[in-house]
């Protein structure tokens, strides 16, 4: 066969290439198509992190043939990982699910002027009385745009190992341990006694979690009311010094959520830990067979709120209306009660709180502790508006946790503090 030049073939190939390039560019431009209505087989997507306890209620929705569409939940293991994806995709303007979960500490940065532009305004005056006031407002921008619907609140109790308390000769009954958890001084002093009796077990799970607990009682830890960064204040320094001083004796020195941290749940690595409602699920899944966990209805220094998240709808969603509807539905009473039963996330929804308290259910894992009642009591002890969370709260909190990790790894507290202030200085 002779190889003769066949111009038409080349023209065809060129044409194909041109079409490909053309379709690439049109594919890029598809983003701002008009929102299509979702059919019964279409899927609305939502991303959560940790365990929001939505698995069962979402399954209930999907099993109901009358629902207009299906919901698919993606669960990311940790907030910090999800935060990076969320911020990157938000800025890129593409890649996010229709509903996204946002952690409470990071909410302020999404309320800033530029960021809130990227979210759908979820304002709905019929919902004004649905949530605890301070959580509801924490999801609003300065000019009153509702960016997030609150899911849960994080009133903190203290979880403890009653069996280890007994071995160390401490009172172990739920009502008798309250004194140990009355003030931070008392708490740390008891810890010193405890580790003398049981040298193989540390007093608390991680330096980071105690820092977080103490920090939640400082009024202005990182930024003043006008969002000026100020980390050289007595309150924050006190937290840092107290925590780092106790690193060698009381702390496991493990990083929260790390493999070592999880291992310590099952090998009697520690005896106490600050316990917001959502932590219950973490304890149960990390130590399903350990018996002896109990919950004290007390918290050193009064009370505190750790975490508690929001559901928001990014503007890049193709189905903002349906997404808003789902966010509304998921944060409604029945679903929040379901979420608490599944994962222990204590609802920010007032009616759900009331219902849980009136049911008065006990949790057999935690030695029949009346979990809802304890969290309701703890919620009352939370100082409103404390700590003040400015736009960079989440960033500086991350740097502080890193600074504490340096001391956990054997670094000097002074050097670590210097590195911390330097890094905070770079945030301007």
């Amino acid at each position, binding site marked *: 066969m*002779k190889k*003769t*030049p066949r*111009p038409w073939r*080349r023209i065809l190939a*060129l044409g194909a*290439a041109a079409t490909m*390039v053309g379709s690439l560019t049109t594919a890029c431009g598809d983003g701002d198509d008009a929102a299509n209505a979702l059919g019964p087989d279409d899927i609305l997507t939502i991303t959560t992190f940790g365990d929001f306890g939505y698995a069962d209620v979402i399954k209930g929705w999907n099993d109901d043939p009358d629902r207009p569409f299906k919901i698919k939940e993606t669960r990311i293991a*940790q907030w*910090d990982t999800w935060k*990076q994806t969320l*911020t*990157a995709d*938000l*800025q890129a*303007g593409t890649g996010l699910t229709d509903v996204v979960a946002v952690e409470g500490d990071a909410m302020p*940065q*999404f309320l*800033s002027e*530029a*960021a809130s*532009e*990227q979210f759908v305004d979820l304002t709905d005056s019929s919902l004004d009385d649905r949530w605890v006031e301070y959580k509801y407002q924490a999801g609003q921008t300065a000019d009153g745009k509702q960016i997030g619907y609150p899911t849960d609140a994080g009133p903190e109790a203290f979880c403890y190992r009653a069996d280890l308390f007994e071995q160390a000769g401490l009172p172990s009954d739920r009502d008798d341990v309250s004194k140990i958890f009355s003030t931070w001084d008392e708490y740390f002093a008891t810890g010193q006694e405890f580790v003398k009796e049981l040298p193989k077990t540390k007093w608390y799970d991680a330096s980071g979690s105690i820092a977080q607990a103490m920090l939640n009682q400082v009024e202005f830890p990182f930024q003043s009311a006008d969002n000026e960064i100020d980390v050289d204040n007595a309150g924050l320094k006190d937290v840092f010094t107290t925590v780092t001083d106790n690193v060698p004796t009381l702390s496991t020195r493990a*990083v*929260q*959520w*790390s*493999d*070592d941290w999880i*291992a310590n749940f099952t090998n009697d690595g520690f005896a106490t830990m600050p316990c917001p409602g959502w932590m219950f699920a973490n304890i149960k899944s990390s130590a399903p067979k350990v018996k002896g966990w109990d919950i004290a209805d007390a918290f050193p220094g009064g009370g505190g709120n750790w975490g508690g998240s929001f559901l928001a709808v990014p503007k890049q969603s193709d189905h903002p209306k349906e997404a808003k509807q789902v966010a509304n539905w998921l944060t409604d009473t029945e679903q929040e009660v379901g979420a608490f039963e599944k994962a222990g996330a204590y609802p920010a929804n007032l009616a759900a709180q009331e219902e849980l308290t009136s049911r008065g259910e006990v949790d057999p894992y935690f030695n029949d502790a009346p979990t809802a009642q304890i969290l309701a009591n703890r919620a009352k002890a939370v100082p409103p508006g404390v700590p003040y969370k400015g*736009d*960079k709260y989440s*960033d500086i909190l*991350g*740097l502080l*946790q*890193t*600074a504490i*990790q*340096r001391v*956990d*790894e*054997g*670094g000097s507290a002074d050097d*670590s503090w210097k*590195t911390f202030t*330097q*890094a905070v200085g*770079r*945030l*301007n």
Partner: protein
Amino acid sequence: MAQDHDLPGRGRGNNAVLDRGGPPRRPKKPGPATTAGGHPTRRYRLSRWDLKASPYLYILPFFAVFAVIGLYPMLYIGYLSFFSWPRFGAEHGSSVGWENYVHVLQDPVFRKALVNTVGIFLLSSVPQVLVATVVAALLDTHLRGKSWWRMSVLLPFVVAPAATALIFGSLFADKSGFVNDVLGGIGLPDVSWHGHRLASWTAIATMVNWRWTGYNALILLAAMRAVPGDLYEAAAIDGASRVRQFLHVTVPSIRTTLMFVIITSTIGGLQIFTEPRLFDTNLQHQGGADYQYQTLAMYVFNTANSAVDPYPRAAAAAWLLFVLIIIFALVNFLLIRALQRRSA
């Protein structure tokens, strides 16, 4: 003589294998290529045009794609690095001159990341190329089951880097890791693989070496296979030992390939990201709590997620990384050329 071992297609002028500058292909029907007036026929002109233009058309798709996904982003971030861009903003703000570069260069974390990157690079690329050359030489001998050996050195390369990082992450775990168990078994103290700076570099470099040594060895092996056997015969007759043959025949013969391997592993080494990122135990992914093993690529990534002007500052850092890689590649190139001249 030795010049002919070059890859086909990279023709040098007249000797080129695929030289297409010769006379035009035969037209379909035999006959005069020119019209009566002495002008070339249309077909002839088309054919000439085809010969001249076609090669460019064939490589055009690559350059078109490269321009879209390589060159354009690079130039655009270069442009972007001179602007401000508030976090989550939809569009970039006003021009700030060199401020982003100043910010990055003054950042102690950037400087630390620079040292880390160079450190990890030296601990990975240097042993990698040396070991790869030796492994290739061993594979070039008369082994039983050649294909099996060659396949197995490539195996680590097939494993996804994320999987590699997870496996080595648990091997090098500080408290429960296998490496520390072994060290403890022979009476040595535990090493803080994540806490100590040099130890963390070593752990990361080990992952990189494990993954890339076999790959480089295969490339070098291909070059070694092309060295003509009569050179070895001549050397053997002159009484050269196997080691001497390797040093004085093999290595000089494969130097172009060696240069390629060195430069690609330099580029790869300076861009290292996946391994340290997944090795990281710090929740904020700082590359260790004290930034012990934060690399420049991680710095760029983290900066793109930071609080103030995330994208422009990351863009500035990315360009600084680019310049650094160019400098390293140039130094490599000049060093190798100087060595070649000396040995020639």
